[in-house]
């Protein structure tokens, strides 16, 4: 549990650090890291249980007590699929922006700001 907390903190911090960079490619990588961190957070917050799959033994109606909750994993699966699509799109967008603007320095991408 403690190990997971440290890993999560590291991932969030690393992701945030990358997002603060001026290069938009790094921003993309930061997004990916924070996405992983979020997925792991759901996993950890849902409770870490080792070696107790939620399977119903033959002849019973419920699995043995203390089984791992399968729902967070279902959530993460959904989140992974969504973030995969979004990451792919963002990667294309970064490339498109680089081609259209000729730069990947976010300081030069200010034409739509005021």
């Amino acid at each position, binding site marked *: 549990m403690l190990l997971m907390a440290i890993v999560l903190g590291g991932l969030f911090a690393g992701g945030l650090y990358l997002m603060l960079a001026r290069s938009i490619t790094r921003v993309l990588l930061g997004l990916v890291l924070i*996405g992983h961190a979020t*997925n792991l957070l*759901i996993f950890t917050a849902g409770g870490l249980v080792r070696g107790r799959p939620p399977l119903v033994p033959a002849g019973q109606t419920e699995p043995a007590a*203390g089984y791992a909750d399968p729902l967070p994993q279902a959530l993460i699966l959904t989140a992974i699929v969504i973030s995969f699509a979004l990451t792919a799109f963002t990667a294309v967008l970064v490339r498109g922006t680089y081609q259209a603007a000729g730069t990947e320095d976010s300081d030069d991408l200010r034409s739509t700001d005021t």
Partner: protein
Amino acid sequence: MKLLLVAPILIPLLTAGVTVAFWRAARFRAWCGVVGAAALLAAGGLLLAATAGGQVRTVQIGNWPAPFGITLAVDLFSALMVLITGIIGLMVAVYSLADVDIPRQRYGYFPLFHILLAGVCGAFITGDIFNLYVWFEVMLMASFLLLALGSERAQLEGAFKYVTINLISSMVFLTGVGILYGTAHTLNLADLALRVPEMMDRHGHLVRACAMLFGVCFGLKAAVFPLFFWLPASYATPPAAVSAVFAGLLTKVGVYALIRVFTLVFGSITGIYALILVVAGLTMLVGVLGAVAQFEMRRILSFHIISQIGYMIMGLGLLVSSDPGVRTLGLTAGIFYIIHHIIVKTNLFLVSGTVRQLGGTYDLRSLGGLVRAPLLSALFLIPALSLAGIPPLSGFWAKLGLIEAGFLGGQNTIVIVALLTSLLTLVSMMKIWNEVFWKPAPQDASEPAEPMAPGQWAARFIPIALLAGLTVLIGLFPAPLLTLAGRAADRLLNPAAYISAVNLHEAADAGLSTTQISEDKP
């Protein structure tokens, strides 16, 4: 009944499917898009009829008993939002026939547009917080593509900012969902409404943290202070039809989620509404001051979205009062404001697209003399004055309700801020009026565009005129909508009907219980 409840999601998705299937037949696709939006409007009307008495209709997807499966729950507030989505969808679809150029249509404008509508409707009718996240993502994905469609430099820059900020807000949302599930062991909104108040004693800090995570995430989508910077930078870049549907619907999904979650789930946290009220005041003021400095028509309108969001959030913030009359009145006015604002703001963006068509630019300094198009001028004035809250237009009743509730609740500061913002809104609308319509055309202005083809003209003016007509109609006869909004607010403040309609007992009757999992946790 079950089919009707899923119709607001199914119809746009089906339309998107059909428009994708007929990839090469551009004209057919365009008309298909219009027909699909009309069907969505009809479904919204039927939903409203089914819930107008205050009933809550639910359907359990896949027949999994709540809270295990995904629940769709439509109360009056949801039905109103779906109906208005249908109206905006249809109007913008018609307008797109003229405004969205053929290459963009060819690259999938109409399928994306309908997927966007599906996401918006899904967010309005879901009764499950993780499902809400999924619909947010559907909506965002479509909006990313619509924003970047065309690949002009400004569009890509705006899109990059929009995508980044929205991805962050999705992560924040997901983090909140994860922590909430970790403590409450449920994701069903009705179930959460029962459990979260019980958890306040033992896990109060976690609940507050979750509430803040949701507040930040929905606040980002709704563009409240201080999370609004992305909005003017991105909404002013795509074609007018796209920014019209964004301006009308997307931020309002954030507002809807804020209202839903902070009335149903997190209402028991002390001080939350006071915080929302402060945010509302700052949002109004900062938004309108931002607009004053702008000289680009759509940027001005974008900043006004922000300031108007403040009014809607103010309706939620007025729940700080303990007087039930003030609470209901405030929330009623907030809901009324959302409906009014969606119509008016979409219309203003549609007008701006037509101004651009006639004058060749969005820049106020090089526009002028458009009063020579008297119909357009009149159709601009109606939503513009309504936005500022001039009687007898719809905005007047919305603001009157909020201000009355504010005074009754003793929140004088926010009332003064609201009135001041209203005045500045009027100033800003008059600035557009003077610069675009009234002043003579500047010398170096581009040649007047050649007259539009009759089909083009109709596709542009019919939606604008209908929306303006709706604004006037609501302004002259506000009573029916006020009654509906009042009933919706009443149901939001007394969620017992919502919770019982979701039928959590069904699961308990079947001998299942979520507490088994939670109690066995290490």
